[in-house]
Structure formats: C-alpha cells, structure tokens
C-alpha cells in the first residue's frame, strides 16, 4: 500500500548535472520542487572525467551561467587547473576546460541544493510513474507516492543500467551505485519507447604507482578566465596533468583479447558514442594509427586517484591491467577502480518538443542522457531548460525555446528534437553554423537578458553585465575614432609583430583588424585607453577583428529567422498536404516542427517539400 508523500509543482527524477539545474531553476522560480536521488552522496557526481568544459562544452557552461544556472559557479569553486583551449585558432572556438575536484564539486552541489528554498532533496528510487487527474504520481521503492504537476526525467545512466567488464556483466549504475530498475517499465506502460545507449569510463589509478619522470606535463593557463560571470576571484591552478601514449604493445594486447570485449562479442546491444570511443574501439577503427594519446588527470586535491582520459575500456580487468602496464609511465600502475562500459535506457529525443516536454505527455519532461546526449555540460544545459519550462508551464507562461542562432544550448536542443540521435550526442563547435556569433566570450550578451527576464539572474549580476557591455561598446567606438600617427616607436613595434609599418595616420580599429596585431599590443600607443577588465579587452578585440564575419553570420541568422517566424501548428496533419513526398509526410508527422525553419532541418524533408509547405502555409493563412 502506498502512502501519500506530498504535493509538488515540479518533481525531478535524478540528481545528476541535469537534475540539479532543473531542480534549482524550478525552485528559484518559486516552484515547490522535489528531487529524487538513488544515493545522496552522489548528487552532482562526476562518474567519468574529473573535468568540466572543453570544446563547445565550455560554451555550454558559460551559457548555462548566463541564464542563471549553477554549473559554472560550482566549477569555478572547485577548479584544480584551467585552460582556454584552441587559443590561436580564433575566438569562435576558444573553449574553457577545467580539471575539477570531483568530491568537492559533489559536496558543494549537494549543499547548494540543500540550502535552496522550495527544494527538497530525497534519497529514493522512483519505480512507478503515472498520470491521474491531480497530476503525475511518482511512487518510490518504499511506497511513498508523490504527486506533482510536472515531472522531469533526468535519469542519466542509471535507468536499467548494466555494467560490462569483459565477460562479467551485472545490473548497476555508475561508480558502484545501484541502477534504477522499476521506472523503465512504467515509461513503457505510458507508451514511451526506450532504447539502449552505452558509454564507458577508464580506470582510476594510484598516483604513487605512476612514473611521471618521462611524461609530458600539461600546465594550466597563466591567466585563468572563470566560467561564471558571477565569480569575482578567478581560481588558481594547483595541479598539472600529464600526457602519455599507447604503443605497439598496447595494440597487440588489445588485438589478442578483442574477442573478450563485450562490444565485439555482441553482448552489449547499446549504441556507444562515436565521439568518445573506448581504447579498443580506437585501435580497431583506426588500425593505421601508431599511437593514441592519453591524459593523466588528478581526481581531486585530497585523493591519490588519477583518471586516465582516453583509455576507457570494457575489456576484462586482467586485460586492462596489461593494457595500462604497456604504457610509458604506467608500467607498474595500480588500478584502484577498473574501467567499465555501462548500458542504459534512454529515449529518442524526437519524442520531445523544443521545450523538452514530451509531445504526447503534457507535464512530462526529459533532460540529459535520458534524452540521448552525453556529457555533464549537455545534461546541465537541458536540465536548466527543462526546469525553466516545467516552472513556466505551471505558471501558465510560454515555454523558453532558444534559437540555434542564440546559443549552443538552442543548437543542442534543436539538433536533438529535430534530428533525433542515433548515438550519444556530444556538443561540438562544428555543430553550430553561427560559430562566430556564439562565442564563449559573449554568452552574457546573448543570454543574460533572457536569464534576467525569466528571473534567474539577479539585479546585481545584470547591472554588472550592462556595465561590461557599455564599456565594450564605448571602447570600440573610441578605437574607431582614434587615429594613431606613424612614429618610429609604433613602426618598430609593428615590424616586430611582422606587419606593415605605417606611413600615414590610421584608426586604431583598423590596426586591430590586422591579424598580427592585438588590442593589447597597442596599449603603449594609445594614451587615452581606459582601464578595462581583461575580458572586456578581449571582447573589444574580437568584435573589431571579426566585424565583417560577424556581420555576415548575422545576415544568415536573419535569413533563417524569416523561416523560423513561419509557425506551423502542432496539430497539422501532414499526410493531408498534397505535393509532399511520402517520406516528408511521415517525418513531418513524427517531428511536428514548430516552424518552417525547423522543418527544413529534418532529414528526409527536401527543399521542394519546404516549397510545398510554404505555399500551403500561405494558402492556409489567407483563408
């Protein structure tokens, strides 16, 4: 017999990176929120790499922060080392990546959740989920029945999780935690089809058993830029990482034992991520490659566990030992936690609207790995949007749908719900067609006004954003107006920078447009330059240097917006529209796009189908 455990506005199942952002956002927007977690010591756990950010993922963290999410602040407070990746490849692809003290991060996140008003954190496994007139009912294994207006599924790799290590396999979640067993059948009962994805993680090894002597060292940046716009004091580097490589012996060990991999013996049915393959996958798929790189990263400040990035595996433990021992520096390494593959239930995200609400289940939302993505940052981004939208639904407001041109978050969600995904979806800069606009440095300009309007960004943060923006604009204006005259000094400097000396006066902005010249290079020749925060200076430079390209991308955005402003009704029956090809009718009926722009991105919908749709829409609108 179930007992009634309370009424809530928002219930969040799972307290990983998606769940936390969802629950915090909902609670901060005034919703009475409950969040369930199988084990409260694993709130915000990082069961894979002890790092946050990376290419495109760093962008996501900045965007989450600009909208008022938590991930950036927590990462800044627990950073061990930080690097801006891709410096020298251009501002569009600069991405922040930080090594994180994973225990500190978990503790901080749990505490933040505990302190949050309107939010209750429960250690419980939800085993049943159904809808009645009074709302969604979440039933726990211990027969507590919670009733909530909306529910967010953020089950990560826990949902029917199964661990694989060589011939051994068993039911389980990540990091030795229990899997969530009952919920899958409840979802199937609701008519939600589930599928299996898999992912994996490398071993954690004992630091003192590694010989670092001959390994390359990877240091953090001298000048750290924090993830969060709200972080006042930038973190400092306290650790280094190391780099080593696999070799012929590693390859031989893997080839000799590949039949023992559950992936190759066919025991694993789940689809793994193309973008984050296991070491045996890399060896098999890229047979020509002589060596593969791996990073040795500390897991925290007060632990001797080290993470071997790039070496995930589902081979038997004894083979793992041989593999690791074949690598320089790891000859005598002691494995503390073995590598494993994990398979889990998830949905095809095309079942969701861009608000992340299920198309066919009002009030039910999905976020994170449950939606087919991979990665902490991807999860957090979706969690934030799902939390915001569950809250807004309860408040009777329109959902927040971010466009592709506004953010990587918008791009991520649009990709997921429009195209679905066949393997775990990882964010990449190349997934955005508007890369020069969606830079990590201007996430605040793109999203903070939205975060403020929604109510997740406080007045003080917003004011300081407005100030930065003003500073930037004033400075760009000044540089456009200010002329520098040719002089021996400046020409010496320009020659040193390998660019043409001046013969006549030139506007400072024009000089900055030269690829060889940076804003900071000209400080000595710019006596009226105001004192500005470093980030503002960087942004000034970027916007001047890339002005033409930024404008061009903006024009493309405007083109696409015209198509996106052509709204399609969710109730449209595409099989009734003459002229659409059969495949297009099916795809359109399955995706039910919000607008023509989204329709144009569905695979299987051709330009001529879009023409037919445009004409049809025009006719509909006239009638």
């Amino acid at each position, binding site marked *: 017999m179930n007992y009634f455990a309370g009424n809530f506005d928002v219930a969040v199942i799972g307290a990983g990176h998606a769940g936390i952002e969802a629950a915090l956002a909902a609670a901060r927007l005034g919703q009475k929120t409950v969040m369930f977690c199988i084990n409260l010591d694993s709130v915000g756990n990082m069961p894979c790499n002890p790092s946050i950010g990376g290419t495109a993922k760093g962008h996501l963290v900045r965007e989450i922060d600009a909208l008022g999410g938590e991930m950036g602040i927590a990462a800044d407070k627990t950073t061990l080392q930080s690097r801006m990746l891709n410096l020298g490849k251009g501002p569009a692809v600069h*991405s922040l990546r930080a090594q994180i003290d994973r225990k500190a991060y978990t503790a901080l996140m749990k505490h933040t959740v505990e302190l949050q008003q309107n939010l209750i954190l429960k250690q419980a496994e939800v085993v049943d989920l159904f809808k009645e007139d009074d709302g969604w009912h979440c039933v726990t294994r211990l027969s507590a029945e919670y009733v909530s207006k909306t529910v967010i599924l953020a089950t990560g790799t826990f949902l029917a999780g199964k661990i694989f290590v060589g011939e051994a396999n068993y039911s389980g979640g990540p990091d030795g935690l229990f899997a969530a067993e009952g919920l899958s059948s409840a979802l199937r009962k609701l008519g939600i089809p589930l599928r299996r994805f898999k992912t994996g993680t490398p071993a954690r090894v004992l630091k003192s058993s590694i010989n670092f002597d001959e390994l390359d060292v990877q240091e953090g940046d001298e000048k750290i830029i924090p993830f969060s716009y709200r972080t006042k004091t930038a973190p400092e580097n306290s650790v280094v990482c190391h780099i080593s490589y696999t070799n012929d012996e590693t390859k031989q060990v893997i080839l000799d034992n590949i039949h023992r991999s559950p992936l190759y013996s066919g025991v694993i049915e789940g689809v793994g991520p193309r973008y984050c393959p296991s070491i045996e996958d890399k060896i098999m798929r890229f047979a020509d490659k002589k060596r593969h790189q791996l990073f040795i990263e500390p897991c925290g400040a007060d632990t001797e566990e080290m993470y071997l990035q790039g070496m995930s595996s589902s081979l038997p433990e004894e083979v793992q030992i041989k593999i690791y021992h074949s690598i320089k520096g790891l000859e005598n390494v002691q494995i503390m936690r073995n590598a494993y593959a994990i398979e889990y239930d998830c949905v095809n995200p095309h079942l969701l609207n861009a608000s992340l609400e299920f198309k066919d289940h009002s009030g039910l939302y999905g976020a994170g790995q449950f939606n087919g993505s991979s990665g902490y940052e991807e999860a957090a981004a979706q969690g934030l949007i799902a939390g915001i939208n569950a809250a807004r639904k309860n408040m009777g407001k329109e959902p927040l749908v971010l466009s592709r041109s506004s953010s990587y978050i918008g791009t991520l969600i649009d990709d997921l719900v429009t195209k679905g995904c066949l393997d775990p979806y990882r964010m990449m800069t190349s997934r955005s067609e508007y890369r020069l606009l969606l830079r990590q440095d201007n996430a605040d300009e793109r999203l903070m006004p939205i975060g403020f309007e929604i109510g997740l960004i406080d007045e003080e943060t917003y004011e300081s954003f407005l100030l930065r923006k003003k500073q930037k604009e004033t400075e760009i204006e000044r540089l456009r107006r200010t002329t520098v005259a040719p002089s021996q000094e400046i020409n010496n400097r320009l020659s040193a920078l390998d660019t043409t000396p001046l013969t006549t006066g030139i506007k400072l902005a024009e000089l900055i447009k030269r690829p060889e010249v940076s804003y900071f290079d000209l400080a000595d020749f710019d006596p009226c330059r105001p004192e500005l925060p470093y980030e503002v200076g960087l942004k000034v430079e970027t916007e001047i240097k890339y002005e033409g390209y930024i404008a061009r991308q903006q024009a493309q955005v405007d083109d696409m917006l015209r198509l996106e402003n052509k709204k399609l009704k969710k109730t449209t029956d595409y099989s009734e529209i003459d002229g659409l090809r059969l495949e297009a009718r099916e795809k359109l009926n399955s995706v039910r796009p919000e607008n023509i722009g989204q329709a144009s991105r569905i695979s299987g919908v051709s330009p001529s189908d879009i023409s037919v749709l445009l004409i049809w829409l*025009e006719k509909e609108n006239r009638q």
Partner: protein
Amino acid sequence: MTDKTIAAISTPAGEGGIGVIRISGRTAITIADRVFKSISGKKLCELDGYTALFGHIYSDDELVDECVATVFLSPKSYTGEDVCELSCHGGGLVLSSVLRAVLQEGASLAEAGEFTKRAFLNGKMDLAEAESVMGLISAKSREELRLQLSAKSGRVSKQISEIEGFLLELSANFAAFSDYPDEDLPELSEDNFKRLLSLAKNGLDALLSTYDSGKVLREGIKTAIVGKPNVGKSTLMNMLSGENRSIVTDIAGTTRDIVENTVNLGGITLLLADTAGIRQTDDKVETVGVELAKERLHTAQLILAVFDTSLPLDKDDEEILSLLSADNTVILLNKSDVGQATSVDQFKSFKTVMVSAKTGDGIGELEKAVKEISGTANLDPSAAVLLNERQLELAKKAHSAVAEAEQLLTSGFTIDAVGVAVDDALSHLYTLDGKRVTNEVADEVFRRFCVGK
C-alpha cells in the same frame, strides 16, 4: 523585401521586334520617369493606370531607344504593385542598355519568377494560375529543356558535388582541429588546406566557364545567311522560319535591309538574319545593304553561306568565299533540285551540305551541320553547364567565398574565420544544387519561373 522595386527584361531573350522592360514596386513609376522623356513632355507619374506615353529612353543623357511607356497603377497590374512597362525595340543590346539605365536609377534586378511571385503574394493569381504561367514560360526548345534536366541530375550536380566534397573535407578538417584540440591528430597542414581550396576554386572556374555555352542554347545563336544575290537566301530563311518573312522574287537585290527571325532548327535556337546579296553594285540603297551584310559576316556567331549549285562559281562567289572562315560557316549548295554545276569537293575545308530551300531537301543534313559547327552536337545534355543568371550568381558567390578563404589563410587569419568563408561557399553551392533551403516564402517554388511572364 517587398519594398524593393524590381526590374527585368520580360520578353524572351533574342526574340521579336519589340522588347519589354517591366518595372514593379513602390518607386516603379518614379524610376521610369528618370530614364524616360515623353514627346509630349508629360510625366509618367501624371498618368492614370492603363495609359501610355510615347517618347525616348536616355541613359546618362544619351539617347538609347524609342519607347512606349505604359503605366499600371496598384492594385490593377500584373504584380498588384505599381508597374511601368517600357516597350522598346527588341534586340539584346538595346534592351540591356535600357535595363541597365533602369537599374542605375534604383531598381533591383528581379530574381527569377519574382514578378509572378509578387503577383501570387499580392493575391493576383492562385497557385494553379501561377503554375499555368509557368507552363507558358517553360523551356524555349527541347534542347534547353533537356539541358535543364541534366543540370538537375547530371553533370552540373556531379561537378558541384565534387567541389562540395573538397570544401566538406576542409570543413571537417577545421572541425576536427577545433573540436579535438587535445587529440593527437595528424598535423593538419596549411598546404593541405590550400590544396583543397585551390581544387575547389579550379572546379568553380571550370563551372563558371561553361556559362557562355549555356547561354548559346538559352538565347540562341546569332546566325547570318549570306551569299551573292538570288542564290535563294530568302527562300531558305522562309523555309527555316516557316513563314514568309523575307520577300522572295527572282529579282536580284530584293532583300536590301536585314530581315531577322528566331527559328528552331533541330532543337537549337538560331537568331537568323537574312542579308542582302553581296555583290558589286552601283545602286546606292543596295550598297548600304551589302555593307550591312558584310558587317554581319563579322558579328555573327554562325554563318550560313548560300551558293547556287546549279551554276558554276563566279567572281562574286569567290569573293564571298574569301570572306568566310571554316570555323563558323556552313556552306549550303542550294537549288540541288535544279542542277549541279558545283560539288561539295570544291569547298573541302568547309562543312558543306546540298539543299533545296524550295523543296526542303537536305534540311536534315543542314541541321546536323549546324549542330556540329555550333558545337552543340558535342554539347551533350549531360555536360556541366550553368543555366541561368541565378546559378551563375551563386557559383560566383561560392567562388569569391573560396577566394576569400584562401586570402584569409594566406594573411594569417584564424581558422574559425576561414571556416566561415568555407561554410559560406558550401552554403551557396547547396543552394545552387537544391540541397538546402535558404529562402523565404515560395522563393523555391517560384524560382522555377523564368523572369517575367
């Protein structure tokens, strides 16, 4: 977008004695007034709808042509907007000068089908009507139609796909380079980037160079019929055009002016000009005609040189022969029905056919010879040819984006900016071969329309 006033030549290229420039949009009449001066001194903006003025078109104060300007006021016009139609004398050169003058005064060149699209959007026609208009403007000849089809499925798209392949490889390289900074990727060399860019550029160069041969099929080949008097040039003209355009008598020198017509010979459009017989003459009027005929010998792309095969070659024939080049001439030995005093062998360096313009004998051989000489027989419908200004425009844009990428790379700009230029080029190509939707309402559908009606 609908704020833009647009203009285009709205009569088929190369045809007819009269050509119409249509201007449509809010400032159509104002723009027309800037290039058009009526005889009466009246302004077009003073006119009611459905009325016209006679006058002249000026471009930079220089007289271009006589013109009848007709004003249609919104909503009672083809497009539903204010429209002015300038009816001038046909002929590509005059019409393009008038169009250029109109564009100079602030109109934008209409995109393919834009008039019809505006008509549709302004409620002037329903889709079915729009489609029937489209039927009317469909390909001018079978050859062109086949060529259009091949543009879709054949070599053009194959060639474009190949170029897209280079750019995609480049784009993928950039992506790997940016998205996996920590990966131990094989060193991505700038040389390789440059190599791919130059492959793409060469491909686009090749594609762009095909535009002219496409134009031949679309607009027709300027063809002159020449020969000494009374060898049957006008009979040939009439036979080919299927109507009595030239006056045929047995009096030498009947055709003194140049008579023009557009004919379709075996699927190829010929802009045929029947010229005065070339001979020494004292007749002043005839002399002018002869001069004109000789001029045509230089300006025509294709020459049909007619000789009377029932008579031996004389001095006039010899003189004409000396003016001809085998590259662009088909020799027609006419009157084969009357007798044979000359033989094909006498013209060995030339492509030569026996015909009877009167009976139509040998017309098949003529067709074949014309095809061969104009290169269109080799112009396999599956050859890569850009068909229209729009395609040309897109290919050019792609070309300049590739050139820009090259330049950025050379000047040391960062990869992300180079990537944007490469993506730009790709997106133009995707638009060109229809792999991506880029434009707004119905543009895609209406693009299938030719300019104007």
